[in-house]
């Protein structure tokens, strides 16, 4: 599997860092962490929308890298493996949280529900951003992950299929239905003015 954005130089650099880590070189492991911590953290944060949880996922992800270092195929790019672990850990966090916190969260959401605001205010960037983020977060886990990998990390359909280990058709389908759900939700959101909503309708 070739990843267009992973250069041969980067793969070779990772290979050397992995080899040194296997020999117990902690500096090499720290270099791997420094290289990928941002990508892993931001992806986890986009999926779970919780800084503490994203940090926990980052931590667990690199502990997995270290404990499985002997089993990692260093001839292949490390990035897809890292994203796969990140997505799996995020899934675990989301399902655990849903089991325990959904009722409480629903109550808090109702209490925090913003009052209707004027069309002028709705045009403000922060509000629009918040509305879109909420809409993305309302998608089911599979659709959300595909959208995040596609729009935030700019992976292609083929690359996302490889990372998630699902057929390309599944990725296309999740992307398509995820977008459609977002479109419908944004169109029906009363906080947005008809003019703003019209642009993507």
């Amino acid at each position, binding site marked *: 599997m070739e990843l267009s954005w992973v250069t041969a130089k980067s793969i070779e650099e990772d290979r050397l860092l992995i080899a040194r880590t296997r020999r117990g070189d902690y500096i090499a492991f720290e270099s791997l962490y420094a290289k990928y911590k941002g990508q892993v*953290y931001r992806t986890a944060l986009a999926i779970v929308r919780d800084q503490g949880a*994203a940090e926990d996922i980052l931590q667990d992800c690199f*502990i997995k890298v*270290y404990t499985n270092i002997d089993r990692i195929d260093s001839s292949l790019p490390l990035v897809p493996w890292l994203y796969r672990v990140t997505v799996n850990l995020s899934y675990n966090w989301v399902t655990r949280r849903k089991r325990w916190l959904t009722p409480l969260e629903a109550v808090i959401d109702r209490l925090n529900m913003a009052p209707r605001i004027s069309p002028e205010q709705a045009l403000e960037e922060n509000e629009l951003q918040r509305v*879109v*983020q909420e809409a993305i977060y309302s998608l089911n886990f599979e659709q959300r992950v595909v959208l995040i990998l596609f729009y935030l990390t700019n992976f292609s359909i083929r*690359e996302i299929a490889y990372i998630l280990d699902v057929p390309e058709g599944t990725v296309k389908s999740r992307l398509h239905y995820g977008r459609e759900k977002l479109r419908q939700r944004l169109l029906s959101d009363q906080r947005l003015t008809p003019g703003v909503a019209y642009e993507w309708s």
Partner: protein
Amino acid sequence: MSGHELIPDVRREDELDRLIRWALYNMVAHARPSPAVWHNIRLQLSPSPSGAVVRKRQARSSWQRSAHGLLTWTTSALAYVFDQEWDERFAKQRNSRRWYEYLALVMPSMAAITVIC
């Protein structure tokens, strides 16, 4: 790089695509993990009081396992010899062979095995 051309029903990037991209980017663009994360990773991977490291250790070869067994056996044998020092029956045999002769027999092999392990 974009995968848009791979999805027939998404076509070229439209307003909704740009809106999703913009919202996601703004949500995480300036996010940075705290230095405590690396600190925690180091803590979790550092050796425990028993000396065991979280990382799975490489499988030991058969000769290493044999050497370990031999070392255990030698240590037991040495302990047995010293125990005999206080044994009355052993005291009777002292005239024929003294305890340090037993020690001299055992020590070189024990030292060699310790180096191997």
